[in-house]
């Protein structure tokens, strides 16, 4: 018998209706579309799998677990947050992770979640910022979510926001979007059942995307923040 209460909590956090700010980020997709590198469902699926398997699965998932285990230790959270910063993703991707981390904290503060108030207070005192995966691993347990639920919801929000961006950029239609989501669900099931990578094994490298986001905005106006 599944834990219905937890299932409902997960669905609420994973819903694109949850106000996370994610709709403003394409994670490099917009640049690759303008470059005519991502042009159809096949090239988009490659992009999506690279982002989820070689960034989220190999990096964010491990960060979530470390933050999850840190409990209420602000010291440990600061340490893992510094690690994320030191991994030196391209600035636009780092900035996106920081902005969405802050957004998630602020939304939960406004919703009255005590753990969010604590981290906001800590951030204000230390004049620092926090990355999205760290916030997810720290805050979601206070809603009652277990570690694997945190992983599943984080992965779901990551790939649905990218697929949604692809629809808005006209790369795929609404049915192909669902086909992409189904395939990602199939691939992620295997990932989520495998051991979580250790800190020393974490990596995030999607070179084509990284380079695309490093280029100046010579391509003119943009819809997305990255």
């Amino acid at each position: 018998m599944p834990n219905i209460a937890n299932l409902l909590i997960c669905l609420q956090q994973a819903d694109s209706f949850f106000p996370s700010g994610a709709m403003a980020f394409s994670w490099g997709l917009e640049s690759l579309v303008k470059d005519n590198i991502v042009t159809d469902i096949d090239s988009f699926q490659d992009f999506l799998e690279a982002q989820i398997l070689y960034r989220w699965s190999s990096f964010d998932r491990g960060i979530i677990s470390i933050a999850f285990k840190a409990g209420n230790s602000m010291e440990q959270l600061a340490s893992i947050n510094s690690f994320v910063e030191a991994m030196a993703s391209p600035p636009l991707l780092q900035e996106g992770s920081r902005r969405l981390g802050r957004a998630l904290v602020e939304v939960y503060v406004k919703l009255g979640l005590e753990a969010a108030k604590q981290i906001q207070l800590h951030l204000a005192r230390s004049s620092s910022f926090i990355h999205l995966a760290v916030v997810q691993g720290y805050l979601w347990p206070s809603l009652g979510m277990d570690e694997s639920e945190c992983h599943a919801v984080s992965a779901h929000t990551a790939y649905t926001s990218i697929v949604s961006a692809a629809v808005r950029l006209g790369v795929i239609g609404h049915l192909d979007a669902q086909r992409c989501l189904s395939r990602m669900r199939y691939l992620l099931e295997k990932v989520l059942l495998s051991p979580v990578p250790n800190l020393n094994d974490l990596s995030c490298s999607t070179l084509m995307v990284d380079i695309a986001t490093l280029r100046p905005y010579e391509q003119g106006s943009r819809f997305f923040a990255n």
Partner: protein
Amino acid sequence: METNEEYLSINTDNKSFPRSVRIGIGGPVGSGKTRLLEQLIPRLFDKGVNLAIITNDLVTSEDAARVRRSGLIDASRVIGIETGACPHTAIREDPTLNLQAAEDLDQLYPGLELVLIESGGDNLASSFSLDLVDYWIFVIDVAGGDDIPRKRGPGVILCDLLVINKIDLVPYVDVDLNIMVTEANKVRNGRPVMLSNCATGEGVDVIVDVVIDQLSFERK
């Protein structure tokens, strides 16, 4: 499972002043939202209002760049928000980044009294989240047709102030302004409807008075 009882309570603390008052300006593409903004800024400065601007254009920075270039306001007081091609979502279902920007402006400019938040051009169904703004203005224009109020779009019906802009174009676009105003008043149940020509500033002084009144009201 541990539950956070405080989290489960209904939290209504969305207007924890002191913070700046936030007024939204929405409306269809090309109705004159940015032009209204450009007319409001100098008049509000003349009245001593400490203000800043957030724009939500379809593309990242078009309207923000226009307002900055205008020289009407310190460029650092103008923030352009990315909407991911979803201008309506950015002001209603997920105004997170707009709220961040407004809070950043409050921190950057102590004593900030007013933030004007211009939405991206959208359709008649667009409206602002009441957790984002304290008051919102919806701008339509006569060139859109005199049947616009009759269509009862949520923007026309729900806004605090409806502005019918470009009244100078009435002779050229085959519309009946009287019908437009009458029907706007009818669908809005008597809530305010104002007329303007934001190209010249005609009618804007009255809108400024409304904004000032709103500032005083929210500050009480």
